[in-house]
């Protein structure tokens, strides 16, 4: 019962964070939302009893991809369509 | 015309994706004999408690070599690409 509640909570969080990535105009906030999406996917892998995949998803998806996006934002502009 | 075609293709692909779980049971791969062999003999043969690691590094070690070489090639590609873009700056350290 409690597993089912956590499971549906994680999946609802996945959908909400994916929509947040789509709606944010501030690209740094959108990147952080994508990192949170990856973190929730890693929690989902852990619930499905795949801890190896959960560790690699948390490190690569939530850590390194976010770092690469932040470096890209640093080299370009922070807001969509140029600086306001 | 093009738009209708893309809608039709999307509907067919989505229906196929939704139909897959109806034919396959969750958690049952097609061939399970090899899994039982690894679970039964992995601890005695590779002397490791973590069966996943003994599969990755012992039974399928050659595939892991390919994975490492792919990572090496990716780093070489990134280095070549960004080195040519960097121009002539003073932090050419090698």
């Amino acid at each position, binding site marked *: 019962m409690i597993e089912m509640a956590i499971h549906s909570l994680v999946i609802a969080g996945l959908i909400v964070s994916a929509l947040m990535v789509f709606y944010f105009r501030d690209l740094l906030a959108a990147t952080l939302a994508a990192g949170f999406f990856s973190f929730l996917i890693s929690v989902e892998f852990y619930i499905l009893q795949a*801890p190896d995949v959960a560790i690699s998803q948390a490190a690569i998806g939530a850590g390194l991809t976010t*770092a*690469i996006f932040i470096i890209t934002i*640093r080299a370009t*502009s922070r807001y969509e369509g140029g600086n306001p | 015309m093009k738009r209708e075609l893309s809608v039709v293709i999307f509907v067919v692909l989505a229906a196929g994706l939704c139909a897959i779980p109806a034919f396959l049971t969750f958690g049952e791969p097609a061939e399970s004999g090899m899994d039982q062999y690894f679970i039964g003999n992995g601890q005695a043969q590779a002397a490791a408690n973590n069966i996943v*690691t003994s599969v990755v*590094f012992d039974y399928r070690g050659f595939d892991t070599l390919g994975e490492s070489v792919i990572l*090496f090639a990716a*780093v070489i590609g990134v280095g070549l690409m960004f080195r040519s873009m960097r121009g002539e700056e003073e932090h050419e350290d*090698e």
Partner: protein
Amino acid sequence: MRMSKIVRTGANLLYPFILIFGLYVIMHGHLTPGGGFQGGAVVATGVALVIVAYSFEEVTSMIKKVGMKARESIGLLIFIGAGIGALAVGAPFFSNFLAHSGLLFGQSIPSGPNPGDLNTAGVIPIMNLAVGIEVWGGLAIIVLYMLSSIPKEGS
């Protein structure tokens, strides 16, 4: 450009803990979930945290590009050497020639559920360490290369 003082202090504080956790995941790869690739990715995440928090000129005094390149090459060489070392004792390529041998990492384990011992599993811990060092250097050098291509006066 560099991040604010809060981000830099947090990165300095978290860096050694992430490093220790990643090395723990690498070294206990044959006992607990994880392994070389996962542990190396965790360590590279810590390095990327420091790289993101500072500017390029400050990062190159802390994290050397030569060292990361050397880690990557040495890791792959150790990995291939552990595979070729099996040929020297007459076993097939990539076979686990150190298991049950009584030498380095050569202890046998009883069958069934047990807490495990670090001194087991033959060449698997050596390969874990090699792949971990390689992934550490490789993923860190990718992020470092991307930072190095930002123009100095940009944003």
